[in-house]
């Protein structure tokens, strides 16, 4: 389970003049992000590019520290209980980032070993995942020539290797073809059905509408609206998610102007 409350994060502007006032030297990446993702549920973090999705996920994954606000994974605070959070969390960043000179199996095994499994257990666990994610055909080939779909599977298997309760996927369907996307959706649904908490970030409306039980719309570093698809449509008075998205983000910028 993920609970985020008022997360805020800014970065130093590259090439900013020191003479400018302090607030102009920094870019606010995440302004106010609050949402909740339950176990057994697929939660979608929907927002355009640059909305702060990746920074939010990085804060949740303990890679960067929130300046203000709090967040917890399965009850562990991301700022205080870093190692426990990492043990309960499987994180797949938005590009697969696998090692091209290692085979798929070696890639998975490496992470298994780093998560504390011994040699025998790591072999067994990577075997399980290779089966589960239907990777048998290419499991012992070096990752150098893998297709995007194959790379994503390896990265997902790595994220799952320590049996985390909570799983975060940053734009996992980027660059996948239709069949690979469908396959990945089935895997994600199965993981949710097994009781995992899934947080899924995307900028593609249809995908989020098709897959997610719960949606948080993020724009300019702020969560504009949060709820199930029907709740969001009802509250914005729209009939599809795209219109709802536009009206929610417009309401947000009006609120800023006033």
């Amino acid at each position, binding site marked *: 389970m993920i609970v985020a409350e008022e997360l805020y994060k800014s970065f130093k502007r590259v090439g900013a003049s020191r003479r400018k006032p302090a607030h102009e030297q920094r870019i606010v990446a995440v302004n106010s992000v609050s949402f909740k993702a339950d176990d057994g549920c697929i939660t979608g973090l929907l927002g355009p590019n640059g909305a702060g999705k990746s920074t939010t996920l*990085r804060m949740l*994954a*303990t*890679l*960067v*520290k929130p300046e203000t606000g709090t967040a917890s994974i399965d009850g562990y605070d991301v700022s205080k209980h870093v*190692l426990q959070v*990492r*043990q309960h*969390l499987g*994180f*797949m*960043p938005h*590009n697969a*980032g*696998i*090692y*091209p*000179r*290692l085979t798929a199996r*070696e890639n998975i095994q*490496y*992470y298994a*070993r*780093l*998560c*504390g499994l011994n040699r025998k257990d790591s072999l067994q666990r990577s075997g399980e995942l290779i089966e589960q994610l239907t990777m048998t055909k290419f499991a012992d080939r*070096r990752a150098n020539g893998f297709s995007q779909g194959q790379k994503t599977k390896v*990265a997902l298997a*790595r*994220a799952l290797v*320590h049996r985390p309760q909570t799983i975060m996927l940053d734009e996992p369907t980027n660059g996948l073809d239709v069949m690979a996307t469908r396959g990945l959706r089935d895997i994600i649904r199965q993981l949710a059905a097994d009781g995992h908490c899934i947080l899924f970030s995307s900028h593609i409306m249809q995908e989020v509408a098709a897959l997610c039980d719960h949606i948080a719309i993020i724009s300019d570093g702020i969560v504009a609206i949060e709820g199930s698809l029907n709740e969001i449509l009802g509250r914005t008075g729209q009939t599809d998610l795209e219109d709802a998205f536009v009206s929610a983000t417009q309401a947000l910028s009006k609120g800023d102007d006033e």
Partner: protein
Amino acid sequence: MSLFIIMLKEIVDNLRDRQTVFYALLFGPVLLPLLLGGSLVASFKQLSIDFDQVTTLSVANTDKAPTLIEFLYSNNIDVIDAPANIQSSVRNGETLVVLEITEDFGQALRDGAPAPLTLHVNNADKDSVKAARRVNTILNVYEQTLSNLRLQHRGIDPSVFDSLNVVENDVSSEGANGQLLASILPFLFIMSMVMGGFYLAIDTTAGERERQSLEPLLSLPLSRTMVVMGKYAATVCFVLLSSLLTALSIYTLFKFFPVELMGGQVRFDGATVTHAFLLVSPLIPFISALLISVSAVTRSTKEAQTYLGLLMVIPMAPFFLLQFLNIRSTLVSMPLPMLSQYQLLESAVLGDSIPTLHIILSVVGTLGATAILLWLAARLYQREKLLD
């Protein structure tokens, strides 16, 4: 434990990379010593003359100076007839040098006047110059003998012309050739260490950032310091391997080296090479730490190659510094990494005694600098900017 896993993975991963393997195991340890050692042998061979070796010399008008021919013969020079066209023959390299005895040579000798001789030499050809030097040396001895005879004939002691008797006493254990050799040894070691760890350090830090595999790695339940140290340990293994191979190839190379050409008693036996390796070994952790901390700042392999390329100047700097400035080993220079190893290795190869204090200072200074660099690398890995 995770340190060990990371180290092992990086080693396996990089052993599958041809570039890394070539530079770590072939370029530094084998090619570099061969190139430098080979050219060194060639230049020594060029410079040194073996007077015991019998050689031939083309002489024109041999009948004009039978005593001189006799003298040449007794100095291991077999005289043969000169070619018809002396000048072009020497210029074209068909004959190395030609000694031309002039028509009035015998008459001048009998008159007690300077007897003219012409030595045709091609100064553009190193072999010709070398042959001419040998002939000149022998002719000088002959001239000295003749002068002495002339003086004695007139009742003068030849030694009255020797107003000074300078005896040069070289107190170093070896001559100047040994000196050059001694400064090349640390250069070879340090260069091969840098080359050995260069690509692995880049691949495991900047390369990992570039492949974007760092982000998932850092989100695993292990501390970032462990991650850096694992990568550092892998680099140390490669640098160690590279320097061990270098020691081995230096030993092998100098086994086939014509040591007598070096003009001294330079001995490159197992003991000397082992001694040199031990003296230089504190640089293994130091250079690895330097490589890791510099490449930790960089974002891409290209950027890392640029920075580390500039860093290559550092192992070369002491080499040139010592060549030109002749800095003495002092208590101040000893704690400086690289410089102290250069000085210690020179002394070791030349067989000079090394004060224990110098060795201790060198080891402590180098390891201290290593600790600072490692601390810096660990700090660099804590930055949030690492994921940009």
